[in-house]
C-alpha cells in the first residue's frame, strides 16, 4: 500500500502535534500528579476536578474555551502574541496545546497511579541518608514513577494522534498546518468520492493507536521489572 503525499502530510502532522503535546503536557502532568497525591491543601478537590474536566467535557467545549483564552483577542493569547510573538489559534502549536489539554488527564492518572504505589517510607529513608527534597525527588521518586510517566506519555501520544474536536475548534482545519489524520479523514468524508481515502486514513489511525497501546504496556512492564516491582 502506497501512502500519498496528502496522507503522509496528515500522518506527519499528527505525529508532530502529538509529540509536541506530550512534551508540553508531561512536566505539568508530573507536577499535577505530585501535588494531587502528596500534598493536602484547600482546593485540592477543585484542582482534581479541573484536571479531569477534559475527560467529561465535549472536546468542542474545550476548544472553545481555549479559543476564548488563547485566541488572538483572548487575555492569554494577546499577551503571548505581544510578549513573545507566539500565536496559538489556527497554528500547529495551537493544535498541540489543544491536544495536550485533552490528553492531560490520561497522563496525570497514569503518573499518579505509579506515584501512589511508591512507599513514602523510601523518601524518609533517603532523607535520613542526607538527601534534600530535590535530591530525593530526582534519585528516588522520579525513577520509581518512571513506568507511570512512560506509560502516561505513550497513551497520551496515541490518544493525541486522534484528537479531533478540540483541534478543529481551536486550531481549525488548515492543510499542512493543523490538518492531522482525523481532520484529514473528516475532510475526505465531506468531499465527493473521498470514501476510499477515508477508509485508508481510518486504517492508519487504527494501526497507530493499537501500536501505541501495546507499546505503552510493554515499556511500562519492562520498566517495572527494572525497578523490581
Amino acid at each position, binding site marked *: 500500500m502506497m501512502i500519498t503525499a496528502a496522507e503522509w502530510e496528515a500522518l506527519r502532522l499528527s505525529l508532530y502535534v502529538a509529540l509536541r503535546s506530550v512534551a508540553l503536557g508531561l512536566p505539568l502532568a508530573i507536577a499535577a500528579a505530585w501535588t494531587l497525591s502528596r500534598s493536602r491543601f484547600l482546593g485540592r478537590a477543585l484542582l482534581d476536578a479541573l484536571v479531569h474536566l477534559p475527560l467529561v467535557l465535549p472536546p468542542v467545549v474545550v476548544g472553545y474555551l481555549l479559543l476564548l483564552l488563547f485566541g488572538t483577542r483572548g487575555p492569554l493569547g494577546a499577551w503571548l502574541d505581544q510578549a513573545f510573538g507566539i500565536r496559538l489559534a489556527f497554528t500547529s502549536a495551537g493544535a498541540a496545546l489543544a491536544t495536550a489539554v485533552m490528553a492531560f488527564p490520561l497522563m496525570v492518572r497514569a503518573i499518579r497511579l505509579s506515584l501512589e504505589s511508591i*512507599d513514602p*517510607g*523510601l523518601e*524518609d*529513608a*533517603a*532523607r*535520613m*541518608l*542526607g*538527601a*534534600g527534597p530535590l*535530591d530525593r525527588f530526582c*534519585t*528516588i521518586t522520579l*525513577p*520509581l514513577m518512571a513506568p507511570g510517566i512512560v506509560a502516561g506519555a505513550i497513551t497520551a501520544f496515541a490518544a493525541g494522534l486522534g484528537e479531533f474536536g478540540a483541534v478543529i475548534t481551536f486550531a481549525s482545519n488548515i492543510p499542512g498546518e493543523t490538518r492531522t489524520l482525523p481532520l484529514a479523514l473528516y475532510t475526505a468524508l465531506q468531499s465527493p468520492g473521498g470514501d476510499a481515502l477515508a477508509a485508508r486514513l481510518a486504517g492508519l489511525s487504527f494501526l497507530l493507536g493499537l501500536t501505541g497501546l501495546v507499546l505503552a504496556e510493554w515499556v511500562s512492564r519492562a520498566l517495572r521489572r*527494572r*525497578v*523490581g*516491582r
Partner: protein
Amino acid sequence: MLEVNVSLRRGEFELEAEFAASTPGVTALFGRSGSGKTTVINLIAGLLEPDRGRIAVDGTVLHDSDRGASIPPQRRRIGYVFQDALLFPHLDVESNLRYGQRRATPRGSRDELLEAAALLGLTDLLARRPHQLSGGERQRVSLGRALLSRPRLLLLDEPLSSLDAARRDELLPWFEALRDRQAIPIVYVSHEFEEVVRLASHVVLLEHGRVAAQGNVCDLALVPQLRAVLAPDLVGAVVDGRTESVDPSTRLARIRIGHSLVTASGTDLRVGQAVRMQLLARDLILATIRPTGLSVRNEIEGTIRAVIDDGPDAVLVEVDVGGPVLLARVTRPAAADLSLEPGRRVWVLVKALSLRGHVYARS
C-alpha cells in the same frame, strides 16, 4: 550523652517522654506496641516534630522548641534502620550502600564500602537487587547503608521484627558486633525483651506514651513496671558477670556472679569474657538448707530481700546473692511452709542446663 525531652499530641495519642542515656552505648526503647516507641525515634530522627521539647546528642542540639532551633532530618547525620529495611528497589545493593556514603562528609571511598560489605557478609550480594534478597540480608544492607552515611547516632526500629526466629538468631550477632566494635550511640526499639537483654546498656520502658521506668537492664529487670509488660514466663533477673573458667571437654563455663560461681551450659565463651545472663524466675528453686544429693549444678547462697505478690498462686522472692539480686517465683504454700521472709538465708538452685540460651557474651 543522648538527651530527649519531648511532648507531642496527635489526636487521641499523647506522648510525654524524658530520658537521658550515656553515649556510646545502646539505649533500648522497650514497650508494648502502641506505647510510642517508634514515635520517639521518629522525633529523634526529625521525621516528626514535637509540639514542644529538646533533643540533643553529644552536645549537638537537634531540636529545641524554646529556641526555635531544629536541624532538618537530612542534616542530622542520623542513621535509621527501618523495620522493613526500605531499600531502594531500583538500585542494586552496592548503589544502596553508596547512597548515604556519597552524601556524607568526608565522602567515603569504595574500599570503605567494600570493607563494610565484607563485615556484614554482603560481598557476594553487591550486584543483587533488593527483591532478590532474603529478609535478613535486606536488614544487613540497610544497616550497612546507615553506617556508611557516617551517622552520629544510629536508630534501629525493630529491625528483627519482620523476620522469623531463625533469621533473627542469625542477625542478632551482627548487632552485638556493631555495639562492641563501633563507637556510635545506638537507640534500639524493640518489644522483644530478649533483644533488649542481649543488646542494651540503658533501657527506657514506655507505657502509653510515658516513660514508666528507665535504668540499666539489670536494675530494670527487677522493677514492677517491667513485670507488668512482660509475659510471666519472661520475668527474671538479669545479671552481668565474667567467665572464670571453661571446661574444654564439656564446654561448661564457670561464671562469677557476685560472690558465687555459676555453671552454665551451651555457651561459647572465652575465659575472662564479660557475660550477661538472664535467670528466669520460673526456673529458680529456693532451699532453706543447703541441699545434698541433687543433680542441680548451682546452689547460690543469698539473703531474701523482699517477697512480692505475683498473682493468686505465687510470690516472687528477691534474693541478694552478694551484690546481684536474683528473682525466684515460688507458690504461696511453698513460701508459707518455708517461711520465706526478708532477711532469711536461702540457697537458690538453678540447673546449668536451664541457663542454655540465656547467657550472652559481651566484649
